[in-house]
Protein backbone atom coordinates (compact mmCIF):
# COMPACT_ATOMS: atom_id res chain seq x y z
CA UNK A 1 0.00 0.00 0.00
CA UNK A 2 1.24 3.49 -0.81
CA UNK A 3 2.11 5.30 2.39
CA UNK A 4 2.99 8.85 3.41
CA UNK A 5 4.77 10.08 6.52
CA UNK A 6 3.05 12.48 8.90
CA UNK A 7 4.77 14.41 11.65
CA UNK A 8 3.49 16.99 14.10
CA UNK A 9 6.02 19.53 15.32
CA UNK A 10 7.20 19.58 18.91
CA UNK A 11 5.18 22.75 19.54
CA UNK A 12 2.05 20.63 19.08
CA UNK A 13 3.37 17.48 20.72
CA UNK A 14 4.14 19.35 23.93
CA UNK A 15 0.37 19.58 24.40
CA UNK A 16 -0.64 16.14 23.11
CA UNK A 17 1.96 13.51 22.24
CA UNK A 18 1.72 12.08 18.75
CA UNK A 19 4.73 10.28 17.32
CA UNK A 20 5.67 10.51 13.64
CA UNK A 21 3.83 7.84 11.69
CA UNK A 22 3.04 6.53 8.25
CA UNK A 23 -0.52 6.33 6.99
CA UNK A 24 -2.16 5.37 3.72
CA UNK A 25 -1.78 7.90 0.92
CA UNK A 26 -4.87 9.76 -0.24
CA UNK A 27 -6.17 13.30 0.05
CA UNK A 28 -4.42 15.56 2.52
CA UNK A 29 -7.55 15.57 4.66
CA UNK A 30 -7.74 11.80 4.77
CA UNK A 31 -4.06 11.63 5.68
CA UNK A 32 -4.36 14.17 8.49
CA UNK A 33 -7.55 12.59 9.84
CA UNK A 34 -5.93 9.15 9.77
CA UNK A 35 -2.85 10.40 11.59
CA UNK A 36 -4.97 12.11 14.24
CA UNK A 37 -6.80 8.88 15.03
CA UNK A 38 -3.84 7.97 17.20
CA UNK A 39 -4.18 11.24 19.15
CA UNK A 40 -7.73 12.52 18.80
CA UNK A 41 -7.14 15.17 21.47
CA UNK A 42 -4.66 16.81 19.10
CA UNK A 43 -7.26 17.37 16.39
CA UNK A 44 -8.68 20.51 18.02
CA UNK A 45 -5.18 21.97 18.09
CA UNK A 46 -4.82 21.48 14.33
CA UNK A 47 -8.40 22.12 13.17
CA UNK A 48 -10.90 24.80 14.16
CA UNK A 49 -14.60 24.17 14.89
CA UNK A 50 -15.32 23.89 11.16
CA UNK A 51 -12.59 21.32 10.66
CA UNK A 52 -10.45 23.79 8.74
CA UNK A 53 -6.74 24.10 9.50
CA UNK A 54 -6.34 26.78 12.12
CA UNK A 55 -5.23 30.20 10.97
CA UNK A 56 -1.95 30.00 12.86
CA UNK A 57 -1.13 26.40 12.03
CA UNK A 58 0.77 25.58 8.85
CA UNK A 59 0.80 22.30 6.92
CA UNK A 60 3.69 21.43 4.64
CA UNK A 61 3.76 18.69 2.04
CA UNK A 62 7.41 18.03 1.47
CA UNK A 63 8.85 21.54 1.12
CA UNK A 64 5.65 23.33 0.09
CA UNK A 65 3.26 25.04 2.47
CA UNK A 66 -0.38 24.18 1.76
CA UNK A 67 -2.43 27.34 1.21
CA UNK A 68 -5.83 25.65 1.20
CA UNK A 69 -7.06 25.38 4.79
CA UNK A 70 -10.60 24.28 4.04
CA UNK A 71 -10.88 21.53 1.48
CA UNK A 72 -7.53 19.77 1.88
CA UNK A 73 -8.25 17.74 -1.23
CA UNK A 74 -4.70 17.73 -2.51
CA UNK A 75 -3.80 14.17 -3.41
CA UNK A 76 -0.59 12.93 -1.85
CA UNK A 77 1.88 10.64 -3.57
CA UNK A 78 3.67 7.66 -2.07
CA UNK A 79 6.52 8.67 0.24
CA UNK A 80 5.32 12.27 0.53
CA UNK A 81 6.12 13.85 3.86
CA UNK A 82 3.52 15.91 5.75
CA UNK A 83 4.67 18.26 8.50
CA UNK A 84 2.27 20.22 10.73
CA UNK A 85 3.76 23.20 12.56
CA UNK A 86 2.68 26.31 14.38
CA UNK A 87 2.94 29.28 12.04
CA UNK A 88 5.45 31.61 13.61
CA UNK A 89 4.16 35.07 14.33
CA UNK A 90 4.71 37.83 16.78
CA UNK A 91 6.91 40.74 17.62
Amino acid at each position, binding site marked *: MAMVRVEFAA*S*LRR*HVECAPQTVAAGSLRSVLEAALLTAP*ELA*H*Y*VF*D*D*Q*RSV*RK*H*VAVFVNRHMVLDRVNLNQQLAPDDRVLVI*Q*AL*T*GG
Partner: protein
Amino acid sequence: METLLVASRKGLFVVRGRGAQWAIESHHFAGEPVTQALADPRDGAWYAALRMGHFGVKLRKSLDRGATWKEVGAPAFPLKPVQGFWADDPTPWNVDLVWALTPGGADEPGTLWAGCMPAGLFKSQDGGQTWALNKPLWEEPRRKGWFGGGNDYPGMHSVLVDPRDPRHLTVAVSCGGVWQTLDGGGSWSLTARGMTADYLPAEVADDENTQDPHRVVSCGAQPDALWVQHHCGIYRSVNGGSQWQAVKAPSPSGFGFAVACDPRNPDRAWFVPAVADACRIPVDGRMVVTRTDDGGKTFTAFGDGLPQSHAYHLVYRHSLEVAADGQTLAMSSTTGGLWMSANAGEQWHCVSRDLPPVAAIRFA
Protein backbone atom coordinates in the same frame (compact mmCIF):
# COMPACT_ATOMS: atom_id res chain seq x y z
CA MET B 1 -6.99 33.09 54.00
CA GLU B 2 -8.85 33.75 50.79
CA THR B 3 -7.85 32.80 47.30
CA LEU B 4 -8.15 34.81 44.11
CA LEU B 5 -7.66 33.44 40.60
CA VAL B 6 -6.18 35.96 38.18
CA ALA B 7 -6.57 35.16 34.47
CA SER B 8 -3.98 37.10 32.50
CA ARG B 9 -2.48 37.42 29.07
CA LYS B 10 0.49 35.37 30.23
CA GLY B 11 -1.00 32.72 32.45
CA LEU B 12 -3.11 32.13 35.54
CA PHE B 13 -1.97 33.48 38.90
CA VAL B 14 -3.15 32.22 42.27
CA VAL B 15 -3.17 34.99 44.86
CA ARG B 16 -3.76 34.31 48.56
CA GLY B 17 -4.19 36.49 51.59
CA ARG B 18 -6.55 38.53 53.68
CA GLY B 19 -6.95 42.13 54.75
CA ALA B 20 -3.99 44.14 53.47
CA GLN B 21 -1.71 41.13 53.12
CA TRP B 22 -1.97 39.38 49.77
CA ALA B 23 0.71 37.69 47.72
CA ILE B 24 1.07 35.77 44.50
CA GLU B 25 1.35 32.11 45.43
CA SER B 26 1.72 30.37 42.08
CA HIS B 27 1.68 30.82 38.32
CA HIS B 28 0.13 28.34 35.88
CA PHE B 29 0.16 28.08 32.06
CA ALA B 30 3.06 30.53 31.90
CA GLY B 31 2.96 32.49 28.69
CA GLU B 32 -0.50 31.34 27.61
CA PRO B 33 -3.43 33.76 27.43
CA VAL B 34 -6.09 32.88 30.02
CA THR B 35 -9.41 34.60 29.37
CA GLN B 36 -11.53 33.33 32.26
CA ALA B 37 -11.26 31.26 35.41
CA LEU B 38 -13.72 29.65 37.77
CA ALA B 39 -13.61 28.00 41.16
CA ASP B 40 -16.74 25.87 41.29
CA PRO B 41 -18.34 26.40 44.71
CA ARG B 42 -20.13 23.02 44.49
CA ASP B 43 -17.14 20.70 44.21
CA GLY B 44 -14.06 22.90 44.51
CA ALA B 45 -12.91 22.26 40.94
CA TRP B 46 -10.91 25.00 39.27
CA TYR B 47 -11.23 25.82 35.58
CA ALA B 48 -9.01 27.95 33.37
CA ALA B 49 -10.04 28.94 29.84
CA LEU B 50 -7.03 29.34 27.57
CA ARG B 51 -6.91 31.19 24.28
CA MET B 52 -3.82 29.78 22.67
CA GLY B 53 -2.47 32.04 19.99
CA HIS B 54 -1.88 29.18 17.58
CA PHE B 55 -4.09 26.36 18.75
CA GLY B 56 -7.35 27.99 19.80
CA VAL B 57 -9.51 27.76 22.89
CA LYS B 58 -8.70 25.11 25.47
CA LEU B 59 -10.18 24.41 28.88
CA ARG B 60 -8.09 23.06 31.75
CA LYS B 61 -9.44 21.70 35.02
CA SER B 62 -7.86 21.06 38.41
CA LEU B 63 -9.31 18.97 41.21
CA ASP B 64 -6.49 19.80 43.62
CA ARG B 65 -6.50 23.60 43.64
CA GLY B 66 -3.94 23.95 40.92
CA ALA B 67 -1.44 21.28 41.92
CA THR B 68 -2.25 19.42 38.71
CA TRP B 69 -4.32 20.31 35.65
CA LYS B 70 -5.83 18.24 32.92
CA GLU B 71 -7.40 19.20 29.63
CA VAL B 72 -11.15 18.81 29.31
CA GLY B 73 -13.41 19.60 26.39
CA ALA B 74 -13.73 23.10 25.05
CA PRO B 75 -16.87 24.70 23.66
CA ALA B 76 -17.01 24.39 19.88
CA PHE B 77 -19.63 25.33 17.33
CA PRO B 78 -21.23 22.72 15.08
CA LEU B 79 -20.55 22.84 11.37
CA LYS B 80 -21.98 25.97 9.82
CA PRO B 81 -24.87 25.26 7.46
CA VAL B 82 -24.15 25.76 3.79
CA GLN B 83 -27.81 26.34 3.01
CA GLY B 84 -30.70 28.12 4.65
CA PHE B 85 -31.07 31.12 6.91
CA TRP B 86 -27.62 30.93 8.50
CA ALA B 87 -25.58 30.14 5.39
CA ASP B 88 -24.68 33.81 4.96
CA ASP B 89 -24.07 34.42 8.66
CA PRO B 90 -21.11 36.83 8.74
CA THR B 91 -20.16 35.62 12.19
CA PRO B 92 -17.64 32.76 12.11
CA TRP B 93 -18.82 29.57 13.74
CA ASN B 94 -15.56 29.22 15.61
CA VAL B 95 -15.12 29.84 19.31
CA ASP B 96 -12.48 32.54 19.64
CA LEU B 97 -12.55 32.88 23.40
CA VAL B 98 -14.43 31.78 26.48
CA TRP B 99 -15.58 35.03 28.06
CA ALA B 100 -17.86 33.79 30.85
CA LEU B 101 -17.81 30.62 32.95
CA THR B 102 -20.68 30.12 35.36
CA PRO B 103 -21.62 27.13 37.50
CA GLY B 104 -25.15 25.79 37.19
CA GLY B 105 -27.47 25.55 40.15
CA ALA B 106 -26.48 24.24 43.54
CA ASP B 107 -28.48 21.10 42.80
CA GLU B 108 -26.91 20.63 39.37
CA PRO B 109 -23.44 19.27 40.09
CA GLY B 110 -21.30 19.20 36.99
CA THR B 111 -23.42 21.69 35.07
CA LEU B 112 -21.47 24.63 33.69
CA TRP B 113 -22.36 27.44 31.31
CA ALA B 114 -19.87 29.17 29.03
CA GLY B 115 -20.47 32.44 27.25
CA CYS B 116 -18.19 32.87 24.28
CA MET B 117 -17.05 35.11 21.50
CA PRO B 118 -18.67 34.82 19.01
CA ALA B 119 -21.70 35.00 21.25
CA GLY B 120 -22.64 31.38 21.65
CA LEU B 121 -23.84 29.97 24.94
CA PHE B 122 -22.62 26.47 25.73
CA LYS B 123 -23.66 24.02 28.44
CA SER B 124 -21.74 21.18 29.99
CA GLN B 125 -23.39 18.61 32.20
CA ASP B 126 -20.29 16.61 32.99
CA GLY B 127 -17.90 19.06 34.58
CA GLY B 128 -16.54 20.42 31.33
CA GLN B 129 -15.77 17.12 29.61
CA THR B 130 -18.24 17.84 26.82
CA TRP B 131 -20.16 20.93 25.74
CA ALA B 132 -23.28 21.58 23.70
CA LEU B 133 -24.28 24.81 21.99
CA ASN B 134 -27.55 26.32 23.12
CA LYS B 135 -29.24 26.31 19.74
CA PRO B 136 -32.43 28.21 20.61
CA LEU B 137 -30.43 31.37 21.31
CA TRP B 138 -27.79 30.83 18.61
CA GLU B 139 -30.52 30.25 16.05
CA GLU B 140 -32.65 33.15 17.28
CA PRO B 141 -33.17 35.16 14.04
CA ARG B 142 -32.55 38.45 15.81
CA ARG B 143 -28.95 37.33 16.35
CA LYS B 144 -28.24 38.61 12.86
CA GLY B 145 -28.80 42.12 14.22
CA TRP B 146 -26.05 41.79 16.83
CA PHE B 147 -22.63 43.30 16.20
CA GLY B 148 -19.24 43.46 17.82
CA GLY B 149 -18.66 46.17 20.39
CA GLY B 150 -15.02 47.00 19.79
CA ASN B 151 -14.41 43.38 18.84
CA ASP B 152 -14.78 41.78 15.46
CA TYR B 153 -17.90 39.88 16.49
CA PRO B 154 -20.55 39.94 19.20
CA GLY B 155 -19.53 38.27 22.42
CA MET B 156 -21.38 36.90 25.45
CA HIS B 157 -19.64 38.09 28.59
CA SER B 158 -22.27 37.68 31.31
CA VAL B 159 -24.09 34.49 32.25
CA LEU B 160 -26.12 34.60 35.46
CA VAL B 161 -27.84 31.58 36.97
CA ASP B 162 -30.71 32.43 39.29
CA PRO B 163 -29.93 30.90 42.70
CA ARG B 164 -33.68 30.38 43.25
CA ASP B 165 -34.18 28.49 39.98
CA PRO B 166 -31.29 27.29 37.83
CA ARG B 167 -33.57 27.11 34.79
CA HIS B 168 -33.69 30.90 34.88
CA LEU B 169 -30.63 32.32 33.14
CA THR B 170 -29.75 35.89 32.26
CA VAL B 171 -27.10 36.47 29.62
CA ALA B 172 -25.73 39.64 28.07
CA VAL B 173 -24.09 40.26 24.73
CA SER B 174 -21.94 43.09 23.43
CA CYS B 175 -23.73 44.23 21.33
CA GLY B 176 -26.85 42.15 21.52
CA GLY B 177 -28.76 43.20 24.63
CA VAL B 178 -29.81 41.15 27.63
CA TRP B 179 -31.62 37.83 27.17
CA GLN B 180 -33.39 35.59 29.64
CA THR B 181 -34.72 32.06 29.69
CA LEU B 182 -37.04 30.53 32.25
CA ASP B 183 -36.87 26.99 30.91
CA GLY B 184 -33.19 26.19 31.03
CA GLY B 185 -32.44 27.60 27.60
CA GLY B 186 -35.35 26.20 25.62
CA SER B 187 -36.73 29.64 24.82
CA TRP B 188 -35.41 33.16 25.25
CA SER B 189 -36.77 36.67 25.75
CA LEU B 190 -35.01 39.93 25.03
CA THR B 191 -35.03 42.02 28.20
CA ALA B 192 -33.22 45.30 27.63
CA ARG B 193 -36.17 47.66 27.81
CA GLY B 194 -35.13 51.06 29.09
CA MET B 195 -31.60 50.96 27.76
CA THR B 196 -30.53 53.55 25.22
CA ALA B 197 -27.59 53.35 22.83
CA ASP B 198 -26.38 56.82 21.88
CA TYR B 199 -24.04 55.29 19.29
CA LEU B 200 -27.01 54.26 17.15
CA PRO B 201 -29.22 56.41 14.94
CA ALA B 202 -31.74 58.17 17.17
CA GLU B 203 -34.64 56.29 15.59
CA VAL B 204 -33.30 52.95 16.81
CA ALA B 205 -31.39 54.01 19.92
CA ASP B 206 -33.87 52.15 22.11
CA ASP B 207 -33.66 48.91 20.11
CA GLU B 208 -33.22 46.27 22.79
CA ASN B 209 -31.43 43.93 20.40
CA THR B 210 -28.43 46.18 19.80
CA GLN B 211 -27.71 47.47 23.28
CA ASP B 212 -24.18 47.11 24.58
CA PRO B 213 -24.26 46.00 28.20
CA HIS B 214 -20.59 45.71 29.17
CA ARG B 215 -21.37 43.57 32.18
CA VAL B 216 -24.46 42.43 34.08
CA VAL B 217 -24.38 41.39 37.73
CA SER B 218 -27.05 40.57 40.27
CA CYS B 219 -27.36 40.70 44.02
CA GLY B 220 -26.98 37.22 45.47
CA ALA B 221 -29.53 37.83 48.21
CA GLN B 222 -32.02 39.52 45.88
CA PRO B 223 -31.45 38.16 42.37
CA ASP B 224 -34.08 40.42 40.82
CA ALA B 225 -31.81 43.36 41.63
CA LEU B 226 -29.51 43.79 38.65
CA TRP B 227 -26.82 46.29 37.72
CA VAL B 228 -25.36 46.95 34.30
CA GLN B 229 -22.35 48.92 33.24
CA HIS B 230 -23.54 49.79 29.76
CA HIS B 231 -21.53 51.36 26.97
CA CYS B 232 -23.55 54.52 27.48
CA GLY B 233 -23.75 54.58 31.24
CA ILE B 234 -25.03 52.74 34.26
CA TYR B 235 -28.39 50.98 34.48
CA ARG B 236 -30.27 49.27 37.24
CA SER B 237 -33.26 46.98 37.40
CA VAL B 238 -35.26 46.03 40.48
CA ASN B 239 -37.60 43.64 38.71
CA GLY B 240 -35.32 41.09 37.17
CA GLY B 241 -34.59 43.03 34.02
CA SER B 242 -38.18 43.59 32.90
CA GLN B 243 -37.42 47.29 32.98
CA TRP B 244 -34.10 49.12 33.29
CA GLN B 245 -33.58 52.55 34.78
CA ALA B 246 -30.72 54.80 33.75
CA VAL B 247 -28.61 55.97 36.66
CA LYS B 248 -27.28 59.51 36.56
CA ALA B 249 -23.61 59.38 35.66
CA PRO B 250 -21.45 59.62 38.76
CA SER B 251 -18.38 61.80 39.01
CA PRO B 252 -15.86 61.53 37.45
CA SER B 253 -17.50 59.43 34.68
CA GLY B 254 -20.26 56.99 33.95
CA PHE B 255 -18.24 55.14 31.33
CA GLY B 256 -16.51 51.90 32.17
CA PHE B 257 -16.64 48.16 31.82
CA ALA B 258 -16.74 46.59 35.27
CA VAL B 259 -19.47 46.46 37.88
CA ALA B 260 -19.81 44.52 41.11
CA CYS B 261 -22.85 44.29 43.39
CA ASP B 262 -22.80 43.63 47.10
CA PRO B 263 -24.03 40.03 47.47
CA ARG B 264 -26.16 41.03 50.47
CA ASN B 265 -27.22 44.58 49.66
CA PRO B 266 -28.87 45.26 46.29
CA ASP B 267 -28.43 49.02 46.70
CA ARG B 268 -24.63 48.86 46.90
CA ALA B 269 -22.56 48.54 43.75
CA TRP B 270 -19.09 49.47 42.55
CA PHE B 271 -17.83 50.76 39.20
CA VAL B 272 -14.47 51.75 37.75
CA PRO B 273 -14.77 54.85 35.60
CA ALA B 274 -12.79 55.75 32.49
CA VAL B 275 -13.02 58.94 30.47
CA ALA B 276 -15.15 57.69 27.57
CA ASP B 277 -15.34 55.02 24.90
CA ALA B 278 -12.92 56.94 22.72
CA CYS B 279 -10.52 57.52 25.63
CA ARG B 280 -10.29 54.45 27.83
CA ILE B 281 -8.08 55.77 30.61
CA PRO B 282 -8.81 57.09 34.12
CA VAL B 283 -10.08 60.65 34.28
CA ASP B 284 -7.15 63.03 34.80
CA GLY B 285 -4.84 60.05 35.25
CA ARG B 286 -6.33 59.37 38.69
CA MET B 287 -7.64 55.90 39.28
CA VAL B 288 -10.79 55.66 41.39
CA VAL B 289 -13.57 53.25 42.19
CA THR B 290 -17.07 54.65 42.55
CA ARG B 291 -19.60 53.16 44.93
CA THR B 292 -23.26 53.74 45.50
CA ASP B 293 -24.99 52.71 48.71
CA ASP B 294 -28.44 53.95 47.80
CA GLY B 295 -29.32 52.27 44.55
CA GLY B 296 -27.57 54.77 42.34
CA LYS B 297 -28.93 58.04 43.76
CA THR B 298 -25.48 59.09 44.96
CA PHE B 299 -21.93 57.85 44.50
CA THR B 300 -18.64 58.25 46.30
CA ALA B 301 -15.31 57.98 44.50
CA PHE B 302 -12.48 56.25 46.36
CA GLY B 303 -8.84 56.55 45.32
CA ASP B 304 -6.96 55.83 48.55
CA GLY B 305 -4.25 53.33 47.68
CA LEU B 306 -4.78 53.60 43.92
CA PRO B 307 -2.44 55.41 41.51
CA GLN B 308 -3.33 59.10 41.55
CA SER B 309 -1.00 60.54 38.96
CA HIS B 310 -0.38 59.56 35.36
CA ALA B 311 -2.25 56.30 35.80
CA TYR B 312 -3.53 54.71 32.60
CA HIS B 313 -5.03 51.50 33.91
CA LEU B 314 -8.19 50.15 32.32
CA VAL B 315 -10.23 47.63 34.26
CA TYR B 316 -11.92 45.10 32.03
CA ARG B 317 -15.45 43.87 32.61
CA HIS B 318 -14.42 40.79 34.60
CA SER B 319 -11.69 42.48 36.60
CA LEU B 320 -13.65 43.88 39.54
CA GLU B 321 -14.95 41.28 41.97
CA VAL B 322 -16.47 41.31 45.42
CA ALA B 323 -16.13 38.39 47.81
CA ALA B 324 -19.02 36.76 49.63
CA ASP B 325 -18.42 38.93 52.70
CA GLY B 326 -19.37 42.05 50.73
CA GLN B 327 -16.29 43.79 52.10
CA THR B 328 -13.35 42.23 50.28
CA LEU B 329 -12.84 43.48 46.74
CA ALA B 330 -10.28 42.71 44.09
CA MET B 331 -9.48 44.77 41.03
CA SER B 332 -6.98 44.29 38.24
CA SER B 333 -6.03 46.17 35.11
CA THR B 334 -4.83 45.96 31.57
CA THR B 335 -1.56 47.48 32.72
CA GLY B 336 -0.86 44.67 35.16
CA GLY B 337 -2.08 46.22 38.38
CA LEU B 338 -3.78 44.16 41.08
CA TRP B 339 -5.32 45.76 44.14
CA MET B 340 -7.32 44.45 47.06
CA SER B 341 -9.67 46.22 49.44
CA ALA B 342 -10.75 44.97 52.85
CA ASN B 343 -13.29 47.71 53.52
CA ALA B 344 -15.71 47.73 50.62
CA GLY B 345 -13.50 49.69 48.27
CA GLU B 346 -12.73 52.65 50.52
CA GLN B 347 -9.01 51.86 50.67
CA TRP B 348 -6.92 49.70 48.39
CA HIS B 349 -3.69 47.75 48.75
CA CYS B 350 -1.48 47.08 45.79
CA VAL B 351 -0.51 43.45 45.29
CA SER B 352 1.38 44.01 42.05
CA ARG B 353 1.89 46.60 39.34
CA ASP B 354 3.84 44.17 37.18
CA LEU B 355 1.41 41.50 36.08
CA PRO B 356 0.53 40.86 32.45
CA PRO B 357 -2.71 42.45 31.21
CA VAL B 358 -5.49 40.91 33.29
CA ALA B 359 -8.68 39.67 31.65
CA ALA B 360 -10.59 38.30 34.62
CA ILE B 361 -10.41 37.61 38.33
CA ARG B 362 -12.51 35.25 40.46
CA PHE B 363 -12.55 34.52 44.17
CA ALA B 364 -12.01 30.83 44.83
